[in-house]
C-alpha cells in the first residue's frame, strides 16, 4: 500500500454511520427549530465536504424527502389541526363530524400556534431523514455491510440486495428517461412513466442480482466449513440473543416493569449474541480486499458525532424548556447553548476526516472496489 493511498483512504463506514446516527439521536431529543436546522446544516456541510465518490445522489433525495414530510405535516395540520383557538390565520370551511369521531376536526380555524407546532414536529422528522441521508452519502451502506461479522454473512447478502435495489431503481429511472429524451420522446407525464416502468424494474433487478453474484464470488453467503448442526446453533444463538436484547430494552424503557428483569436480560442477551457472532465468524473464511481500517481519525469522527448528543442532554439539565420551545403561547425559541456547541464540534470531521478523493482518482479507484460492482460510465 503506497503512502498516498494511505492518506487518501476512505474512513471506516462505521465511523460515519455512528456520526450520522448520533446526530439523528440528537434530533429525536429536541423540537427546537434552531437546533434542528443547525443539525441539518451541519450534516449538509459535512456531506458537501466529505461525501464518498460513489453514490452521491442519495443526500439530495433524503433532503427532498424531508421537505416532503414537512409539507405533508403542515397540510395535515391545516386539515385536521387540533389547535383551534389562538391567533387564527385563516378560516377553512368546517365539516361537522359526529361525537364518536373522538374530537376529530375537519377544516375550521387554522391557527399560528398549531402551524408552528406542526412545523417543529415536521422539522424533527426532516432532521432525522437528513441525518440518515448523510450517513448514506458519507459511506455507502454496502461498505458498512462489508464490516459485518462473518456469522451474519448470509443475512448480509439479502440485506445488501434489498438495500441496493431502491437506489438502483432511482439511477435506472434517470438513465431510461435520458435515453427516452435522446430518442425524442416525451419523458414527462403519466403516459411516459408507463413506458419507463418496465425497463426500469428489469434493469434494477438485474443489477441487484449481479451484485448478489459478485458478493457470492467473494465469499458472502457461503456456509463455510462448519457442520449444519453448528451453523444452526450459531444462527439460533444470534436470534435468541437479539430477541433477549429487544425484550430487555422494552423492559428497561417501560416505567412499569421491574428493573430486576431488564438489566440481566440485556447483559446476557448481548453476551449470547456477541459470543455467537464471534464463534460463528471463525468458521467462515472471507477474503477482504483493502479492509477498512479503524484508526485514530475514526475515533475522532465518532466522538465528534457524540458531542451534540451530549450537548443536548446537558442542555436538558441546564436549560429545561429550551429543547421543547412552546408554541402556545407563541414564543421565540431560546438557544440551548450546550447543544449548539456540540453541533459545532460535530463539524470537525468535515476538515479532519480523510481528504476526499479528487474525481480522477475516484474513478481510478472504483474498479478495484469490492462488493460495489457499479459499472462506471454506463
Amino acid at each position: 500500500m503506497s503512502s498516498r493511498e494511505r492518506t487518501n483512504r476512505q474512513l471506516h463506514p462505521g465511523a460515519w454511520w455512528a456520526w450520522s446516527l448520533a446526530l439523528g439521536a440528537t434530533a429525536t431529543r429536541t423540537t427546537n427549530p434552531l437546533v434542528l436546522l443547525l443539525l441539518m446544516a451541519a450534516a449538509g456541510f459535512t456531506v458537501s465536504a466529505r461525501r464518498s465518490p460513489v453514490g452521491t445522489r442519495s443526500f439530495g433525495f433524503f433532503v427532498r424527502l424531508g421537505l416532503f414530510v414537512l409539507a405533508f405535516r403542515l397540510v395535515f395540520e391545516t386539515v385536521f389541526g387540533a389547535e383551534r383557538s389562538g391567533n387564527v390565520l385563516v378560516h377553512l370551511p368546517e365539516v361537522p363530524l359526529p361525537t364518536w369521531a373522538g374530537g376529530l376536526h375537519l377544516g375550521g380555524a387554522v391557527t399560528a400556534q398549531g402551524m408552528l407546532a406542526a412545523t417543529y414536529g415536521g422539522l424533527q422528522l426532516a432532521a432525522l431523514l437528513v441525518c440518515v441521508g448523510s450517513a448514506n452519502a458519507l459511506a455507502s451502506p454496502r461498505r458498512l455491510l462489508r464490516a459485518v461479522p462473518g456469522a451474519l454473512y448470509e443475512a448480509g447478502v439479502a440485506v445488501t440486495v434489498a438495500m441496493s435495489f431502491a437506489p438502483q431503481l432511482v439511477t435506472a429511472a434517470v438513465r431510461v428517461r435520458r435515453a427516452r429524451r435522446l430518442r425524442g420522446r416525451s419523458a414527462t407525464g403519466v403516459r411516459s412513466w408507463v413506458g419507463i416502468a418496465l425497463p426500469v424494474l428489469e434493469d434494477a433487478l438485474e443489477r441487484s442480482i449481479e451484485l448478489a453474484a459478485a458478493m457470492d464470488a467473494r465469499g458472502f453467503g457461503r456456509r463455510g466449513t462448519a457442520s449444519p448442526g453448528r451453523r444452526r446453533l450459531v444462527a439460533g444463538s444470534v436470534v435468541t440473543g437479539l430477541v433477549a436484547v429487544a425484550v430487555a430494552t422494552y423492559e428497561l424503557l417501560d416505567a412499569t416493569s421491574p428493573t430486576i428483569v431488564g438489566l440481566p436480560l440485556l447483559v446476557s442477551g448481548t453476551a449470547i449474541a456477541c459470543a455467537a457472532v464471534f464463534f460463528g465468524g471463525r468458521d467462515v473464511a472471507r477474503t477482504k480486499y483493502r479492509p477498512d481500517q479503524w484508526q485514530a481519525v475514526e475515533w475522532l469522527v465518532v466522538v465528534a458525532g457524540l458531542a451534540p448528543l451530549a450537548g443536548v442532554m446537558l442542555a436538558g439539565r441546564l436549560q429545561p424548556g429550551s429543547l421543547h420551545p412552546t408554541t402556545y403561547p407563541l414564543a421565540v425559541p431560546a438557544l440551548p447553548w450546550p447543544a449548539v456547541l456540540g453541533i459545532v464540534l460535530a463539524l470537525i470531521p468535515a476538515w479532519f476526516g480523510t481528504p476526499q478523493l479528487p474525481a480522477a482518482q475516484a474513478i481510478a479507484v472504483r474498479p478495484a472496489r469490492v462488493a460495489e460492482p457499479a459499472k462506471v460510465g454506463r
Partner: protein
Amino acid sequence: MTTARRRAGPTQARVAAVTLATLVIMVALAGRAHAATAYRYWAYYVAQANTWQFSQRGPATEYPVDGEVQGWRFAIQTEAGKGLAPRALPDFAKMCGSTPATAGQLRVGIVIDFGVGADAPTGEHPPGTEVSGCVHVAEGGSGADVLRAAAAVRIGTGADGGLVCGIDGYPANECATAVTTKPTPTSNAIPTPKATPTTTPLLTSPAKATASTPNTPAAASSSAPAPPVAAASSPVPTSASAPSIARTSRPPTLASLRTAANRTDHFPVGAVVGAALVVAVGAGASWRARARRR
C-alpha cells in the same frame, strides 16, 4: 488472508466497544426514567353533583353546558382518576351567581388550584393557592376554551404535544414530568370533596380560598386516619407554602392571569445567534457543494 483477519479482528472489537457504550448510555437513560412512579401535572376535573370528577376526556373534547364548573389542579398524581382534585368546592352559585346569562354564551365556573409548595418543581413556588371565577365561552366551546378564557395557558410540543403543561407560567418549563420521589401518603389524603363533603371549614365556607391555605394540612391530617408518615409530613405543606402565602398577599385573579400572558421579553439574543449560525453553516454547505460541482 491471515493479515486481513488480523486487521478485521481489532475493528470488530472496536465496533463491539461502540455498541457496548451505546447500550450503557441507553441503560443509564432508561434507569432514570424507570425510577419514576408518579407524574406531576395539571389534572382536569369536571364537577358533577357538586363533587369533582376526574375528567375521562381531554379539555379539547369536553364540552361544557351552561352552569357547569370545571377545575384544574396541579399536583403529583400517582394514579389518574384517583388523584388530587381542586381543594375548593365546585360552587357555581358562588362563582357565577352575579353573572347574568347571555344568549349564545355559556357561563362556566372555573377553579384553578396551583397545589401545595411540596408538589412544586425544584426552584419554583405556586404563584398562589387557587383562583376561581366565571368565564363566558361561545356555545359549542370546549373545556380548553374555558381554560384559555380564564388564564394564560402553555401547551406542550413534541412528545408532550397538546398537553396542558403550564397555567399562568406555572410550572415554568416542565410538562407532566415523571417524579422519582413518591408522594407522601398525606397527599392522597388531602380531602377530595367526595371523601369529606362538609367537615372542613375550607370547603363549606365560600370565604377567600387563598386565605385558608394553612387549614389544608390540618384538614388533611384530621380527616385522614393519619399514619405516622402523615404526621411527619403534614408540616411540609405549611412550611413550603410560606413563600406562596407571602406571594398571595395580593392573590392572583382571573383578570391578572389573563394579562400574565404578555410578559416582558427581552431581545432574543440566543435565537438571533442560532439563526446566524444556521445561515452560516448552510451557506458554507451550499458553497462547498457548488465548488465541488465545478
